[in-house]
């Protein structure tokens, strides 16, 4: 039996050890409970909660979803019960679960990020925090934290100072130079990096002659964004040494292998779970069978194998020029 386990926080004494590298992505798995009657949630490597904000949010008006070719746009608007409502309800349930639960947090100020992290620090049933830096920074006039290395680092530092929990910082694909953001959050104390969040898109209802989503724009996810995500993981893998969690349109084993081979140590599945709730469990089985067949005994044997800058010798100067030219 090949070893599928992975530690996503090797530099953190609290560790973030997963039995396998398949994680259900934030926003696509609710709080885990929604899927617990349909699949064996405990078999997942981990899951990430829906995005939690300092105060309760009712979310955006409807319609919130638009299907696009091999993808979908969503503009849910972070509907959630707020950090205090969340803490009352979910951590006590998760404390009885075997599967590691990560909490995804979003805020519009650095202070709010830190306050939420501090509140989560001593809660039961929480294996780590995923920091969503794809939110507008009020102090910067609504400019997205994750588009700027310095602002991304500032959030990471503040959250790091507020908790010793394993910290995964989720990068925004809207960053001008995603590798610089990755380096900045690594230096600011992130235990791992996850990417990519959705890409901002739009769809028009031609019959009604207006945008399909009430919010006008939404986040694009699904197979349509996979090549962009693979490219960005490739760029980030050349720039940092902390573990990378890759995501963006992963549906099949081959999709996941692409991410591992450019440097991801784990992957997240999102939209594919909407389509097929058991998809992540099938992926775990497929991955184990593939490793057996290919004579791969440990996952890290394949992490980065398709990368010119192989693990241990990752250097920024090896970042592919083609990506820069295409950008």
């Amino acid at each position, binding site marked *: 039996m090949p070893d599928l386990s992975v530690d996503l926080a090797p530099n953190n004494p609290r560790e973030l050890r997963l039995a396998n590298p398949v994680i259900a992505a934030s926003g696509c*798995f*609710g709080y885990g409970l929604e899927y617990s*009657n349909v699949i064996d949630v405990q078999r997942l490597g981990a899951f990430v909660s829906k995005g939690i904000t300092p105060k309760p949010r009712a979310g955006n008006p*409807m319609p*919130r979803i638009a299907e696009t070719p091999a993808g979908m746009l969503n503009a849910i608007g972070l509907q959630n019960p707020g950090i205090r409502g969340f803490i009352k309800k979910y951590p006590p349930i998760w404390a009885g679960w075997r599967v590691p639960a990560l909490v995804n947090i979003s805020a519009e100020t650095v202070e709010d990020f830190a306050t939420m992290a501090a509140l989560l620090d001593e809660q039961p049933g929480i294996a780590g925090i995923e920091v969503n830096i794809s939110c507008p920074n009020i102090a910067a006039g609504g400019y997205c934290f994750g588009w700027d290395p310095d602002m991304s680092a500032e959030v990471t530092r503040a959250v790091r100072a507020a908790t010793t929990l394993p910290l995964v910082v989720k990068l925004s694909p809207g960053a001008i130079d995603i590798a610089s953001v990755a380096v900045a959050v690594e230096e600011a104390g992130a235990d791992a990096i996850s990417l990519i969040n959705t890409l901002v898109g739009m769809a028009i209802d031609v019959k009604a002659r207006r945008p399909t989503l009430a919010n006008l724009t939404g986040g694009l996810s*699904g197979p349509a964004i996979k090549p962009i995500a693979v490219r960005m993981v490739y760029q980030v893998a050349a720039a940092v040494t902390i573990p990378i969690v890759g995501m963006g349109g992963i*549906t099949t084993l081959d999709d996941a292998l692409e991410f591992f081979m450019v440097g991801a140590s784990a992957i997240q599945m999102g939209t594919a779970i909407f*389509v097929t709730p058991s998809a992540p469990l099938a992926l775990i089985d497929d991955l184990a069978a593939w490793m057996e067949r290919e004579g791969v005994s440990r996952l890290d044997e394949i992490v980065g194998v398709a990368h010119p800058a192989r693990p241990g010798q990752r250097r920024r100067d090896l970042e592919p020029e083609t990506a820069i030219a295409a950008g």
Partner: protein
Amino acid sequence: MVELDLDLDVSAEATANVARAREFASEIVAVEPVMGDSVLLTLTAPEGMAAQVRAGQFLDILCRGETSLDPLIRRPYSIYRANARDGTLVLLVRPYGRASHWLVARQPGDALDVLGPLGNQFTVAPRSRNLLLVAGGVGAAPLVMLADEAVARGLSVTYLMGAAGAAGLLPPGQLPSAVEYVVATDDGSQGHHGFVTDLVPGYVRWADQIFACGPEPMFRSLRQVLLGQRIGGKPAVQISVERTMACGLGACLGCVVETRRGMQTSCVQGPVFDMDEVIW
């Protein structure tokens, strides 16, 4: 800000005597044209499911072949009829978008990837004797199943149906014979010339409960004709709404309906809502 009620009632869903939602491979056993360009698809279901599903629940269907990624997301279809005897479930599908066009082109023997049954159900109060059902177009589906259930329990059912023209109406033979079936058409080709909701006031005093399913304008019209007709909210009105959905399990919050109790998911807390609770 709206008062948030984000209780998921997952435990309540699990303990109720309803079929557990699951992914299953189904086979189409019959395709029958109905209501003009629509079809009735009869599907196999896991053992015991047909006896456990309830009127108002729906199936989430993957409307593409295994080698395609498009259309990506499943489509919800209300269960039209459940045949406990042979264990099959029936869906009513009207070709509208790409997914439904793919679905109406299926043949007997074809396989379908199904997630379900999902959603809540119509609730008939223990004291109710007379049920008024109001259907618009393919909104007929969950109300056929409700008529089946109600007649089996000895209740009186009047089924009002509206369509653009006579060809779009449900054939009377599709309903149990004990049901009083009254129709309306926009073009006057059959029954009342006008909206189905025009017929409602004549039944308000008779009905203990009203159940409706159809397009959004029909609900608006129903609310309009009922203004001043009901006393103390009686008869109560339950409506089955349609929203674009992604997960079908209450996780993505893409299909919410704004209600007096906060944002509610139409996939788990719906698709059936008390009309008076919905904020329009």
